[in-house]
């Protein structure tokens, strides 16, 4: 009987200790060390999500079916730090800043001649295979050469009149990076 009582008291003490640990973890005492830790975490998160991985919420259907409206992604800023975008890369193109950006696919590089014939993409007179384009397209665009330090970008969803799709050559300076996945 006495032993059982001791067991109960022991369990109670153990439970209290666990509770204290949980409380300590979630509500630690507000010390200078805790304050510094909070500030450092906030600063690291700010730098990480402002300069390395920009959070993106995709709006619109210009990149369907590869990227659908409403999806969440991140723009990996260092993707083109040591290299230039390659053909078929999906890139993030900025406007005045990084609050609203465009998600497009690179179809031609600088110096190349790009053209659409009855919905088919031609680069330097060569028909390009585009497995990512799943919807029908009937675009026709006369040949044009991509200027220096630019890439030609188009969305994957071309199932709309050509006038309603925002595409063209973008300066490499405007390429912010690529989507993380």
């Amino acid at each position, binding site marked *: 009987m006495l032993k059982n009582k001791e067991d109960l008291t022991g369990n109670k003490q153990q439970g209290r200790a666990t509770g204290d640990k949980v409380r300590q973890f979630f509500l630690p005492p*507000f*010390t*200078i060390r805790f*304050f510094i830790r909070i500030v450092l975490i906030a600063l690291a998160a700010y730098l990480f999500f402002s300069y390395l991985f920009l959070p993106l919420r995709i*709006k*619109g259907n210009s990149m369907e079916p590869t990227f659908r409206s409403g999806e969440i992604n991140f723009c990996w800023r260092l993707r083109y730090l040591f290299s230039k975008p390659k053909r078929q890369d999906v890139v993030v*193109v900025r*406007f*005045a*800043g*990084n*609050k*609203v950006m*465009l998600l*497009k696919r690179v179809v031609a590089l600088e110096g190349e001649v790009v053209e659409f014939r009855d919905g088919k993409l031609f680069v330097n007179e060569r028909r390009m295979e585009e497995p990512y384009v799943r919807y029908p397209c009937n675009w026709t*665009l006369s040949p*044009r050469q991509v200027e220096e330090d*630019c890439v030609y*970008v188009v969305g994957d969803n071309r199932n709309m009149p050509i006038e309603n799709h*925002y*595409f*063209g*050559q*973008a300066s490499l300076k*405007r390429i912010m990076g690529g989507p993380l996945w």
Partner: protein
Amino acid sequence: MVKIRYLIIVLLIVVMGISAIFFFSPGEQKKVKKQFALLSEDVSKDPSENTFIMAKKIKGISALFSESCEFEVPGYSLSGIYTREEISAIALRGRAHFSNLDLKFYDFKISFPEKDLAQVNVTGRLIGKSVYGEQVDETRELECLLKKVEKKWLFSQLEVVEVLKR
């Protein structure tokens, strides 16, 4: 320990005070931004908008522009110098095409190259629905010049920057 706690509280109060002064002070940048907020408010349209509100908004739009404003908007056959009256007429015609409209501005870069002159690089996004039920979602980068006339910043030049060149 208690001293440190008081020190942190005092520090927080000081930071909040400085932020409040900065937030409520009417700096020139803030005044310029406010003109964009007013433009956004007056261009935006609600499906339940009545004639009285429409007239008020059109008047509001023309009041944001200087006596003459230069537009360079390729693709919308809008280029040249327009008077306030012409801008009002364009705004009236443009808004009539839509049952609802929402104009927002992002990523302001404001500089003051000369006294009483503000140069603004900004992203504008227009979302709406035409009277025929067609969805509109257009984003463009804009380069604007605003002149300070009688303590008011007025749009005097508006140009659409070509981000993707066909």
